[in-house]
């Protein structure tokens, strides 16, 4: 019997939770705020789905309802991607060691 590909994705998911668990526990508490802003930025990789949604269908008529939701999602995710990474960068630049 063949294994459903869903099981493979579930395996990736569960293993990633474990990876996340160990990686996040090793984050120093003083960087918890940048951790939140960077996790926010990377979760905006949902833009992948938004791009597929926006470009779906024929190239003449790309403003069907489903496309519009795709475009809106691109807009929201893009705010997050740029905002998230840049604000994280700005914060991390402030952390300095004693001279």
């Amino acid at each position, binding site marked *: 019997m063949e294994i459903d*590909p869903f099981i493979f994705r579930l395996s990736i998911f569960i293993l990633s939770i474990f*990876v996340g668990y160990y990686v996040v526990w090793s984050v120093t508490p*003083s960087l918890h*705020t940048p951790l939140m802003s*960077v996790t926010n930025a990377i979760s905006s990789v*949902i833009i992948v789905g938004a791009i597929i949604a926006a470009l779906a269908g024929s190239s003449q008529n790309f403003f069907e309802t489903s496309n519009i939701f795709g475009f809106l999602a691109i807009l*929201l995710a893009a705010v997050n991607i740029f905002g998230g990474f840049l604000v994280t960068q700005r914060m991390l630049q402030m952390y300095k060691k004693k001279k």
Partner: protein
Amino acid sequence: MSANLSALFYLISGILFILALRGLSSPETSRKGNYFGIAGMVIAIIVTFLSVGNFGPGFIYVLAFLLVGGSVGAFIAFRIPMTAMPELVAGFHSLVGLAAVFVAISAFLKPEAFNLGLVGNIKLASLIEMSLGAAIGAITFSGSIIAFLKLRGIMSGAPITFKGQHLLNLILGLAIVFLIYYLCISQSSNIFWTVVLISFLVGVLIIIPIGGADMPVVISMLNSYSGWAAAGIGFTLENTALIITGALVGSSGAILSYIMCKGMNRSFFNVILGGWGATDQTSSSKSNEQKPVKNGNADDAAFLMKNASSVIIVPGYGMAVAQAQHALREMVDSLKKNGVKVSYAIHPVAGRMPGHMNVLLAEANVPYDEVFELEEINNDFANCDVAYVIGANDVTNPVAKSDPQSPIYGMPVLDVEKSKSVLFVKRSLSPGYAGIDNDLFYRDNTLMLFADAKKMTEEIVKSL
């Protein structure tokens, strides 16, 4: 681009995201980590363009939306003051949530674009995944909006509770599960929309009963939800990068919530079910008029600190409100010139989000190796001459160690009272968020400095 090749690239971008979080284990490696994250994102976006392979006029629109959103994001990122980080993060979470909802809606309306079957005949697993993604995304969105409004002060931070609240939430939660089940049988779009609407409502209802000072837990929790929403969409789209990222973000937020709850010695459910302080206020805030306090001014404080050999600063949310971090840093500079050893003690739940105080101190150019966590520094209070408490309150209350009746009993607190003298900057004797009188105010070794945190610190700088 073939599906297999793009799947491999998505895996690479997932790994880069793991490295981005890994980098945050120390400030030196963190900047490199952020670049890994950016690289992962760039790869994911380019691979998606190549695998869709549609470079018609639609592509131009995609780029336009990307640039407009990106410029807005960049503008916000450069302009936002560091004290406003909690509301910024809450606001950003709401966007991720809404984006997840939109993608799920789009997939429901046009499943063939995502290889999920046809309208009215969507694959069962995909239907479950997308409705879960949409539901969690909607909860994240409306919940984050409420958190944003509370943090921004547009909405009162006081818990909003009403009779039967928990029962209502339970019913709505069960309704979502039931409707998703029914959706799988009927494939009806009306039910899909109902699920989304109820989820928006649930998001509002679960955040309103949570009070202002519990915001660190709320933000972490919403962080976690946004991850699970992304993972749900990742399963729908069969996209490895999204699944990995969703799992990472989901567990990250969950761990942060756990750390914050532990910092308050409360269970997660206790926080979620809300309304701390609202019930205990009557019993705790009586008879604080009679007790004598010692009242000092900036000169007294300057004198005490100048002659000390070691000073520990205890910052709290009040420092952020008063924007006192720069004045504080000036004060510490002049103390250091006088040969005083200064360090900072940060309680896990100081501020309105995890690590809030650390960022503010970093902004004021305080080196991060002078800033310590509770466990690292708590024993040092016994050997320290002056503790300077600025904007913190409940996290210093010795009652948490001594009075089993107190609502904060058992919460880890900074042992501020063990230092030879305590300088407590506060605007009035009013109790803190928990509605509990702070025993520290009436101790013999405590000198109260009644003033705005920033003004008092500036005056001390002048007297030094």
